[in-house]
C-alpha cells in the first residue's frame, strides 16, 4: 500500500495526539490523583502507537509503546507519581515530537532514544518486575535486533518472548474454551484477561482483542503470556473464572517459534492486551471526544491565487456598479447590488480562510515553561488567555520564536527564585500571563509576569557601558524609553546577561522580527512587581486597513496603524520653527509634512484655506501629513511594487482600488526620522 497519501494526515494527527499528551501530562501533574487523565494520555499514546506501526515507523511505535507501559503502570497504581516520572514522560513526548517532525521533513523518524528508554524502564522497574521485563525487551528491540522472519509472532513479540525467557519468565500459550452455554462471552474474556494480567503480561491474543470484545469468536480463543507462574497455577487461576470450560497451557517452544503455526493470526500492529482494554473505554468515549468540525488542508499558494482572482472580481464589481449607475436601469441596479453583497460576504470568507487561531503557537508553551521552571528551580504558573484569537497564517508562522524568547526571558530574569519571592512577600509561585486579543485591526499579545521588574539604573548603566547611549542622553529618557533599551541591538552581550536584573538575551531579535511583521513591542514594568511586554501585530500581512487620501488628482493610502487621528487646521495656525512648518497639536509641536511637495505631485487646483492633516506616528515621534482631502477608510490588499520600484521613496507598496486604479501606500516610517 502506498502510504504517502496518508503521510500528511498521519503527521497532523500525530502532532495532535502528542499535543494532547503534553497538555494532559501537565494537567496530570496538577491533579496527580485523577486517573481519568492518565486514561486520556494513554489513549492518545495508544492511537499514536497504532498509527505509527501501521505507517511503518517502528522506532516511533516502540518508544510510544514504552511510554504506554509507564502510563499503564500509573493507571494501575503500580507506581507512584514522582516529578521525575513527569520529566521522563515529557522527555519521551519531546523525542516523539522530534521523530514526527523528522518524518514531516521527509526523514524516517529515527532517533537515538536510549536515554529516555532507560529512564522509562527504571521508572517501571521501581514497582513492577514483570512490566520491567517486558519493556526491557521492548527496549532491546528498539535498538535494532537482527531481523527475524516469522509470520506468526512478529519481530517485536518474539523478542519480548525470548527476553522474558532469558530473565526467567515462562512463555505460555493458553487455549481457553468457554462453556457452550456461556452468555456473555466478552465479559468472560475480560475476566480471563484480568486474571492473566495479575499473574503476567499478555503478549498476544488470537483472535485479536477487538474481535474478542465483539464476541467474534466461537467458544475458544488463545492467549500468549509471559509469567513466572507455573503451568498448573496459570491453569487453575484461569479456571476460577466461571463459565470457562477448559484451559490448555502449552509452553512456547522457541525452536519452533519461527515455523508458522496455523492458529495464529498475523497482526501488523503490536499491541498488548493491557492496551487493548483501553479500547473499550476509547469506544465509549470516542463520540464525545471526536472533533466537532471537519477541516481540509489547503496549500496557502492556492489561497493566494484565490485572493488574486477575488480582487479582480471586486474590481469588476466596482466597474459594474459605475455602469449600472450610469445606465439607471432598475433591474441592473438590483442585480449589481446583490452581487455586491455576495462579493463582500465572499471577501470575508476568503480573508478568514487564511486565519489560524494563535493556539497553534501557544500550545507548546506550557510544556516549555514547565521544563524551564524545573531547570531554573523556579515555580511558575503559566496562564493562557485568548488562545482562540485568530491571526493570518503568515504571521502565525513567524510569531513563535519571538514569543519563546520573551517567555524565556520572563522566566529567567523576571520571575525570582521561590526563596527570594517569599522574602519579598510574594507567593512562592510566580505567575506568567500570556494573553492574546483583537483590537481593531490588530492582534495584541501580552506577556505579563509578576517578577522582579526592570531596574532602570542597571539598564541605563549597561546601555552606557555598551555604548548604546550617552550619559547625557540617559538622564532625559522616560522609564518606558529606558525599558525599551533592552530591545536595542548590542544591549546584551552573551555572557553577561545574568548580571543584569532586567532582561536582554538578544531581545533585539525579537524586536526585529516583530517589526518585520509590521508590528511593534512595548514594555511596561514596575520594579519589584513585574513587567508587561506588549506585542502589537497586524491581523494579516497581506490586508491592511488604510485611510485613503487625495493629493491633487492622486490617491494615496496611509496605513491606519500609523495614524493617530486626522485634523483640519486653518492655514494661519501654521507656525514656523527654523525652516520647518509646525502646528500645535494638543499642546505638542508637530512638524508638518506637505506630501504634495515630498511626492512632487503635479498641481491642478488652488489651495484651500483649510488643510487636511493626518497625524501619524513612528514610535514616540509624530508628524502631520498634509493632504488635500480624506476619502475614507478601507481595507486593501497590500501588493509589492516589485523589484523595479522597490527603492521608491516613502512608498511601501501598492494596492488596487475598486475602480481598478493603483494607489500607492505611504510608508510613514520613512517620512519621520
Amino acid at each position, binding site marked *: 500500500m502506498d502510504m504517502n497519501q496518508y503521510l500528511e494526515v498521519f503527521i497532523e494527527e500525530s502532532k495532535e495526539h502528542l499535543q494532547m499528551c503534553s497538555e494532559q501530562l501537565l494537567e496530570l501533574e496538577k491533579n496527580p490523583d485523577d486517573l481519568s487523565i492518565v486514561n486520556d494520555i494513554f489513549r492518545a499514546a495508544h492511537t499514536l502507537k497504532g498509527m505509527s506501526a501501521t505507517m511503518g515507523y517502528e522506532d516511533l511505535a516502540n518508544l510510544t509503546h514504552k511510554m504506554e507501559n509507564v502510563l499503564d503502570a500509573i493507571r494501575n497504581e503500580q507506581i507512584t507519581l514522582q516529578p521525575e516520572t513527569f520529566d521522563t514522560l515529557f522527555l519521551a513526548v519531546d523525542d516523539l515530537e522530534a521523530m514526527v517532525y523528522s518524518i514531516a521533513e521527509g526523514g524516517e523518524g529515527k532517533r537515538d532514544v536510549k536515554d529516555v528508554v532507560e529512564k522509562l524502564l527504571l521508572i517501571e522497574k521501581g514497582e513492577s518486575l514483570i512490566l520491567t521485563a517486558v519493556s526491557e525487551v521492548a527496549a532491546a528491540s528498539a535498538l535494532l535486533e537482527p531481523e527475524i522472519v516469522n509470520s506468526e509472532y512478529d519481530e517485536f513479540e518474539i523478542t519480548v518472548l525470548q527476553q522474558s525467557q532469558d530473565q526467567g519468565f515462562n512463555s505460555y500459550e493458553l487455549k481457553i474454551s468457554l462453556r457452550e452455554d456461556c452468555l456473555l462471552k466478552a465479559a468472560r474474556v475480560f475476566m480471563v484477561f484480568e486474571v492473566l494480567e495479575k499473574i503476567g503480561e499478555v503478549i498476544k491474543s488470537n483472535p485479536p482483542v477487538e474481535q474478542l470484545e465483539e464476541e467474534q469468536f466461537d467458544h475458544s480463543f488463545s492467549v500468549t503470556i509471559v509469567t513466572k507462574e507455573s503451568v498448573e497455577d496459570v491453569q487453575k487461576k484461569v479456571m476460577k473464572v466461571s463459565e470457562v470450560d477448559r484451559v490448555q497451557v502449552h509452553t512456547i517452544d522457541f525452536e519452533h517459534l519461527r515455523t508458522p503455526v496455523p492458529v495464529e493470526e498475523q497482526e501488523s500492529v503490536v499491541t498488548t492486551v493491557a492496551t487493548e482494554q483501553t479500547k473499550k473505554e476509547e469506544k465509549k468515549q470516542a463520540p464525545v471526544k471526536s472533533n466537532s468540525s471537519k477541516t481540509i488542508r489547503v496549500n496557502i499558494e492556492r489561497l493566494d491565487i484565490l485572493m*488574486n482572482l477575488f480582487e479582480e472580481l471586486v474590481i469588476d464589481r466596482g466597474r459594474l456598479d459605475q455602469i449600472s449607475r450610469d445606465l439607471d436601469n432598475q433591474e441592473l441596479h438590483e442585480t449589481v447590488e446583490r452581487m455586491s453583497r455576495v462579493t463582500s460576504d465572499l471577501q470575508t470568507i476568503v480573508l478568514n480562510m487564511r486565519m489560524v487561531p494563535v493556539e497553534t503557537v501557544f500550545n507548546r508553551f506550557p510544556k516549555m515553561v514547565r521544563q524551564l521552571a524545573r531547570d531554573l528551580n523556579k515555580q511558575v504558573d503559566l496562564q493562557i488567555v485568548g488562545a482562540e484569537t485568530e491571526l493570518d497564517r503568515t504571521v502565525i508562522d513567524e510569531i513563535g520564536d519571538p514569543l519563546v524568547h520573551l517567555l524565556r526571558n520572563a522566566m529567567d530574569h523576571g520571575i525570582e527564585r521561590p526563596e527570594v519571592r517569599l522574602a519579598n512577600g510574594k507567593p512562592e509561585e510566580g505567575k506568567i500571563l500570556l494573553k492574546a486579543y483583537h483590537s481593531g485591526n490588530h492582534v495584541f499579545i501580552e506577556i505579563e509576569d509578576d517578577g522582579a521588574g526592570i531596574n532602570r539604573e542597571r539598564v541605563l548603566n549597561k546601555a552606557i557601558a555598551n555604548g548604546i547611549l550617552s550619559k547625557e542622553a540617559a538622564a532625559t529618557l522616560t522609564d518606558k524609553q529606558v525599558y525599551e533599551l533592552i530591545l536595542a541591538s548590542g544591549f546584551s552581550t552573551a555572557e553577561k546577561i545574568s548580571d543584569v536584573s532586567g532582561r536582554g538575551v538578544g531581545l533585539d531579535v525579537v524586536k526585529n522580527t516583530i517589526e518585520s511583521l509590521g508590528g511593534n513591542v512595548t514594555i511596561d514594568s514596575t520594579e519589584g512587581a513585574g513587567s508587561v511586554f506588549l506585542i502589537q501585530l497586524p491581523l494579516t500581512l497581506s490586508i491592511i486597513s488604510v485611510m485613503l487620501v487625495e493629493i491633487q488628482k492622486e490617491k494615496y493610502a496611509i496605513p491606519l496603524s500609523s495614524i493617530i487621528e486626522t485634523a483640519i487646521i486653518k492655514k494661519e495656525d501654521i507656525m514656523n520653527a527654523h525652516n520647518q512648518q509646525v502646528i500645535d497639536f494638543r499642546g505638542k509641536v508637530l512638524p508638518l509634512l506637505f506630501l504634495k511637495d515630498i511626492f512632487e505631485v503635479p498641481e491642478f487646483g488652488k489651495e484651500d484655506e483649510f488643510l487636511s492633516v493626518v497625524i501619524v506616528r513612528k514610535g514616540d515621534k509624530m508628524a502631520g501629513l498634509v493632504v488635500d482631502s480624506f476619502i475614507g477608510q478601507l481595507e486593501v490588499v497590500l*501588493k509589492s*511594487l516589485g523589484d523595479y520600484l522597490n527603492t521608491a521613496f516613502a512608498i511601501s507598496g501598492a494596492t488596487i482600488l475598486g475602480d481598478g486604479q493603483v494607489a500607492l501606500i505611504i510608508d510613514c516610517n520613512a517620512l519621520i526620522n
Partner: protein
Amino acid sequence: MTAVSTEQEVKIIVFQIKDKEYALPVERVRGIEKLLHITRVPKTLPFIKGVINLRGVITPIIDLRIRFGFDEVVYNESTRIIIVVIEGMEVGLIVDSANDVMDIPVASIEPQPEVVGHRIDEYISGVAKIDKRLLILVNLEKTLSLDALQESMRKEG
C-alpha cells in the same frame, strides 16, 4: 507558430517610436494594451512612468521614448503599452504605436550599425531590412535590466 515558420524566420512585433520602427521577438511579448490609467510613483527615474493594474498585478511602466533619450510627448489614441517579460517580471513599455506582427527571415538581421557615441546603440541588438523598411531590434535585457537601471540611476544622480 505555423508549420511554415522554420528556423529561418522569426516572428516579431513591430512598434514605432518617433519616426523609427522597432521590433521585439514575439515570445517576449505578453500582450499589447491600450493606454490604461498609470499611477505615478514619485521620486523614481524619469522614464519609469509609474505602475498600472494589469489584471490584478502591479506592473511597472517604462516610457521607451524617454528611455531611448527622445523627447517626451503627450500620449494619444495610438499610444500603446507593450507588456514584455524580463527576468520573470512583467513590464509595460509605452510606445507611440504598435503596428505590425510579421515574420522576418533571420538572414535579414544584421548586427547593429557602428554608430559610435549615440546613446541608443546600447539598446539595439541588430537591424533588419525588410523591403524598404528598416526595423531596429531592441535588446530588452540591456534596455530593462535592473543593473542598467541602477547604472542610469547613478548617472542621473
